[in-house]
């Protein structure tokens, strides 16, 4: 994990794969209602793109693509999206996480719609937390010994090897 792979082919392919992996992660997220998938799986796949980047191009390269100053605030954001949707339902007059309350009508069709939207909303929250948590877990555990804490800026020096 510390140093990058020698082979330029591996490094190039890893770099170029990232957008495709992450696009697939978003597809998995969006597809969760129709088939297997959802926020959790999507989040893990999203984070695995950064892991691949770090494995092939070195820890610092991957960390620069997903720096702590971006990932750290995202960790609680997902939970807050989830709880926030729950609180919105509560403010709208329903129970906590009762998405149907957001419809503001008695029409069962509208209820179904809003439960669907609520589902998508919380899945997005799950994905935000899961992907940032998985990437953070990896980067913190794989951090090379010579890189001290609060690393984003140190990454520059280490990245040169």
């Amino acid at each position, binding site marked *: *994990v510390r140093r990058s792979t020698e082979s330029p082919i591996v490094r190039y392919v890893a770099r170029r794969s990232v957008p495709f992996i992450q696009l697939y992660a978003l597809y*998995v997220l969006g597809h*969760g*209602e*129709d*088939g*297997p*998938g*959802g926020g*959790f*799986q999507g989040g*893990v*796949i999203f*984070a*695995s793109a950064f*892991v691949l980047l770090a*494995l092939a191009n070195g820890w610092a390269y991957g960390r620069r693509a997903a720096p702590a100053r971006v990932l*750290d605030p995202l*960790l*609680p954001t*997902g*939970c807050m999206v*989830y*709880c926030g949707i*729950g609180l919105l339902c509560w403010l709208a007059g329903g129970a906590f*996480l009762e*998405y149907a309350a957001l419809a503001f009508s008695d029409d*069962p069709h509208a*209820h*179904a*719609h809003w*439960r*669907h939207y*609520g*589902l998508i909303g*919380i*899945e997005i*929250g*799950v994905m935000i*937390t*899961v992907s*940032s*948590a*998985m990437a*953070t*877990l*990896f980067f*913190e*555990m*794989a*951090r090379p010994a010579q*890189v*001290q*804490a*609060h690393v984003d800026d140190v990454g520059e020096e280490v990245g040169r090897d």
Partner: protein
Amino acid sequence: MALLWCRMNALDVGFTEAAVGAGISTVLMLAAVRRVGRHESGGGRRSGVAPALAVALVAGALLYGARDMPRVGDPGAPAHRAGTVAQHYLAHSMEDSGSPNVVTPVLGDYRGYDTMGETTVIFIAALAVVLLLRQAGRWPRGPRWKGGAQ
């Protein structure tokens, strides 16, 4: 494992198993091994009898419990009986939330609290790792509270 879940038509679980069990946790395990070193340090040689006994006991209890599990696809299994929540979920998830995949509404709607707790657990896990490992880098001579808090 992922194939086993797919064999039981639990595609969502199989998917998760493939992504987390085979993917991320392997990488995390390797990272952890690289961090702590490959060999045990000190401690001397201890007898392996007690751990082996504990493992055998737990395995025996699990095997004994597994005898009571219903067969795969058994129509008389508790989850398949009429009048349970599972039947309600299967029958109503489409009209309730317009989602063809029944797993998603069960996780996110009917059991929304569970999934919220699950997300919070992951958040706390990441938080703990960040707190422990980042501080470890900052204080090379051990945690500050050892000397300071007396």
